[in-house]
Each structure stands twice: as C-alpha cells, then as structure tokens.
C-alpha cells in the first residue's frame, strides 16, 4: 500500500531523514516510534507530499507522490502534529471546506460527513467555533478532517499528544476501529500507546531506522529468550544442576526474595528454547521450580536500548 524507498531529506548539512525504506501493507497499523527530533514528522510530511524528499521515492498504492501528486494525495488523509484548523470557522464550516478541497461531490457529502462526525463523536459541537473547543475536541476534528474523502491511508502524527488519559484511551479505541478499514501510519513517542495499537513498529533515531518488527518480535528478539526462575533449593545445588544443561550460556543468581528460595536469571545460547531442559534438569536434581517466566524486554527497554546504544537491529 505504502512503499517508502531510500528516502533522504537534507536541510543543508543537517540530515533529517537518512536513507529510510519500509513498506506498509494493506490494512496494517504501523507505529512510528522515536524520540523527539528523530525525523518522524519529516518522514510523515514526505509521505503525505507536504515536503519533498531530497532523494528516494514514496509510492501510495503504486502511485508516486511526486509524479502524480493529486492522485496520490486523494488516497491519504493526514493529521499533522498541529491539527490544521481554521480557528474562525465552525466545525461544520471547516469540514465542509475540507470536502471542497478534497473534491467530495455534493451528493455524498452530507452522508459521509454524518458518518465521520458519528465515528469521531463531534456531532454535538458541530455548530461551535473551533477556537472555543477543548484540545480533545480539536484533535478529533483533526482526525475527522483526515477521514474526509474516504482515503485508504491515514497518517496520524502524534494523535494523542496533549489529551487527558480518558481521551487518550478513546483516541486509541478510535484508531483501532479505523484500522479495520484503513491502512494507518501512526507516530508517537509514547510506548504503551504504540504497543497497544500497532501491528508493527518501526523505531527511528537520528533519521535512521534502528529496529523494526511486531511488538512481540521486537521484545523477544532483543530480550533473547532469557528466563527468570525462582527455585526452592540451595543456591549451589541449583547452579550445579543448571550448568549441566546444554544450551545454557550463563547463570546468574539474583538473591533471595522469598524465604527458602533463590531467584536466578538464565541466559540461553542464541535462539534456543531452554525451558524444557531447564525444567527437566532441576526436577532431576529435586529442586522444585516455583516460578519461571521469560524476561522479554518491555518496549521501553527496547527503545532505550536502540536509541541510546545505536545498536543496529533488523
């Protein structure tokens, strides 16, 4: 649906986006994650045709955004970081104007506006001036604006920024709902949001993609299948038993958190599932396992890891 190929954006000497390539499949919700100033908004501005890339191409549904901008832009709805609202208009005047410029025929206008206002729940404020609306409503009018003209692709730049917790949850639910009928690119620096909503995540830092994958994959890959164990046996006995197990690279005691038990973290060799051998070995040594859980990295940890160490992960 969306193909981004080798996109680079330079401002003089400064490289805002550095050779970024990815594709978004039909009906997918892609999360774009990165610290402030990582190049998220620039990438989104390029995808939507607001600014041009210095190098590289962006294709929407096979249509190049620079060669046939009008055709390509019809397929994208964009909610920029600052919702582009005219403060002196009422909500319905504004949406009417967006219909005009997105070339929605007057026959389908009324029906589609009603549908959109119903989905984003702004029906009750449609007669009010936009400048008098709360931040949450303004954001929703921004989303409504992006949906006009029924684009298949929605690009949402930090859609939950500045909202209160209840509004954030509502906005997430809305995005999930929209994701059933749209392809969505969503940017955020709030991690739980991305992991809650997105099918796939791209982490970007200093203009480069540093990690990509599903939330589960990312955390498994970077977590590397580590296990945390709590065993009801003396430390020496447990250590001895575990060191015999094939595939175990490192055993690290973490101390006692429950009387008569010992907590241990086990690192496996690359890509080996050691849960069964560990269970069998400890059961042979008569060391009852009270708890075993995989030590997947949370998204926060992944994020910190890839954006601070700049380790290349793909």
């Amino acid at each position, binding site marked *: 649906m969306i193909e981004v190929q080798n996109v680079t954006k330079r401002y003089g000497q400064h490289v805002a986006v550095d050779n970024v390539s990815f594709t978004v499949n039909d009906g997918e919700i892609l999360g774009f994650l990165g610290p402030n100033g990582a190049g998220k908004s620039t990438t989104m501005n390029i995808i939507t045709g607001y600014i041009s890339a210095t190098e590289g191409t962006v294709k929407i549904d096979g249509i190049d955004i620079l060669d046939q901008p009008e055709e390509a832009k019809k397929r994208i709805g964009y909610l920029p970081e600052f919702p582009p609202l005219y403060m002196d208009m009422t909500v319905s005047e504004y949406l009417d104007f967006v219909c*005009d410029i997105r070339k929605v025929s007057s026959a389908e206008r009324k029906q589609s506006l009603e549908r959109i206002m119903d989905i984003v729940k702004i029906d009750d404020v449609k007669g009010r001036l936009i400048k008098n609306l709360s931040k949450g409503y303004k954001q929703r009018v921004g989303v409504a604006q992006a949906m006009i003209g029924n684009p298949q692709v929605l690009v949402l730049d930090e859609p939950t920024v500045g909202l209160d917790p209840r509004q954030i949850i509502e906005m997430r639910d809305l995005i999930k709902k929209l994701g059933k009928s749209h392809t969505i690119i969503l940017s955020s620096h709030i991690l739980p949001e991305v992991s809650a909503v997105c099918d796939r995540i791209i982490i970007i830092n200093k203009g480069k993609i540093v990690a990509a994958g599903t939330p589960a994959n990312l955390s498994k890959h970077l977590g590397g299948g580590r296990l945390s164990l709590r065993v009801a046996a003396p430390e020496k006995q447990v250590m001895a038993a575990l060191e015999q197990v094939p595939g175990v690279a490192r055993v690290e005691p973490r101390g006692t958190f429950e009387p008569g038990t010992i907590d241990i973290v086990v690192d496996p060799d690359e890509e080996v599932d050691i849960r069964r051998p560990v269970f069998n070995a400890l059961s042979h040594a008569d060391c009852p396992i009270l708890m075993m859980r995989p030590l997947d990295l949370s998204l926060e940890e992944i994020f910190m890891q890839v954006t601070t160490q700049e380790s290349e992960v793909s």
Partner: protein
Amino acid sequence: MIGVYKKELKAYFSTPTGYVFMGFFLLIAGFFFAISNLFPMVANYNAMLSNLTFIFLIVVPILTMRLMAEEMRQKTDVLLLTSPLSVNEMVLGKYFAAVTVFLITLLITCLYPLMMSFFGDIAVWEIIGGYVGFFLLGSTFIAVGLFISSLTDNQVIAAVVTFSVLLLLWVMDALQSVVPTDIISGVVFASALVAAVAIWLYSATRNIYVSLVTAIAGGAAIAGVYIANKDIYTGFIGKALAWFSVLNRYNEFSLGILSLSPIVYYITFSAVFVFLTIRNIEKKRWS
C-alpha cells in the same frame, strides 16, 4: 479553486479584515467625492478617482497581509498542500477572493456617479474607462501584496513590506527625472538588468549553462545595439522606469482612453506576481 475562493471570501467577512478594508476605503472615497465633486459641483469624476489611487498604499496591505502569512503561522497550509489541490488553484483562489472584495467595494462607489447623474449629464464611457483602470491598478497591487504575504508567516511584516514596496512603485515616477541620462550609465543599467535576470535564472533552476547563455546573449544584444545605434542608451534608465511604472499607465484610463496595451500590461504584471507566489510556495517545499 472554488473551495479556497469561497473560504477566503467568507474569511474576509467573518473576521474584521473585510469590514475594515471596505469601511476605510468607502470613508476616504466618500470624503474625496464630497470635496472634489459634490461641494464644488464639478463633474470631473475621473480626476477624483485618479487622486484616490493613493488609497491603495494603505488598504491593499490590509487586504493581502493575511492571505498566505496566516496559513503558514497557523500551519493550515499543511491541509491545503496535502489535499488533492494544486498550488495554482490555491493561490488563484486566494487572489480572486481578494480581488472580489475589492470589486464589491468598487461597485458600491458606483453610487457616486449615479448621484451625479441626477444633477446633469455625466460622461458615462469616460467614467467606465476610469473604473476599469482603477480596478486593474488595484488588482495589480493585490498581486504584489499576495506575493509578499507568501514570503513571511508574520502578518505585520507582510503589511509593512507591502506598504513599502507599493510606496516604491509610487515614487518611481519621481525618480525618472533625477536618474542619469548619459549613454554609459544606460549601458551599465542594461548590463545590470541582464545580470539580474541571469542570477535569478540560476537561483531558480540551478542550471549554470542556461544562466550563462542568457547572460552572454544579453551581453551580445547590448553590445550589438550599442554598435548599431548607441543613442538608444541616452536616457535609457528613465525610459525603462517609465515603461515599468505602474502609475504612468493609469493616466490613459484617467483620460477615458481605453486602449489594449495598458490592460495587457496590468494583467501581465498581476500574472507575474501570482506566478512568483506559486513558485515561492513550491520552492519552500523543495528546499
């Protein structure tokens, strides 16, 4: 284009801008009409219109300062530029909206000659000619204001710069009498013009060959003309200024003469500035 046009027109009257423009224009026009036609009982309406042209210096910035600057400040230009709407449509919509507000105001002033017609015969065609010129002059200045508004995201700066540029166009006539008239300065001026065009071409296209060819061709033309008939350069600066002068052309209309060349001149002048506005917005997205 219609969408942007309607929105801009509405914006003029949902904010004070349109009312301030119309109110101020009509106030001054009415004042002029009263003191130069009504009280002295003089029927020369075009002379009044001609005196009234200075009003553009003040009211055109009011009309145009918002057009592009406000979109950029509020970041609503993102909406326009990411919609399936070409930059041409967007700029033309805005330009025509401003021209329409001006035209509506002008139509209201048609009451003045109508009033005069109750008291005697008026030269209808002459007045129509005067109005056409007045309208074209105003539209030209609006195009200049539109362009300047696209250069900044600050309305106040847009207004001040527009005022200064219009003032410069205004005093250009006075400049004609003081510029040097000798042949050498004529040649230097012509060369400077060619150089300016070549530099502009380079900054617009980044193609050194095109600019070089233009510069060389221009230089050759200047030299050729110099060899053939160097007297052409006598008073060349003054002639160029007179040709370029926006106000000079208006005088013909003022006399009630409706000829093609000033009409073409004004329309071209406006078109150039509308085009420059479009280029400027496009360029911002590429840099």
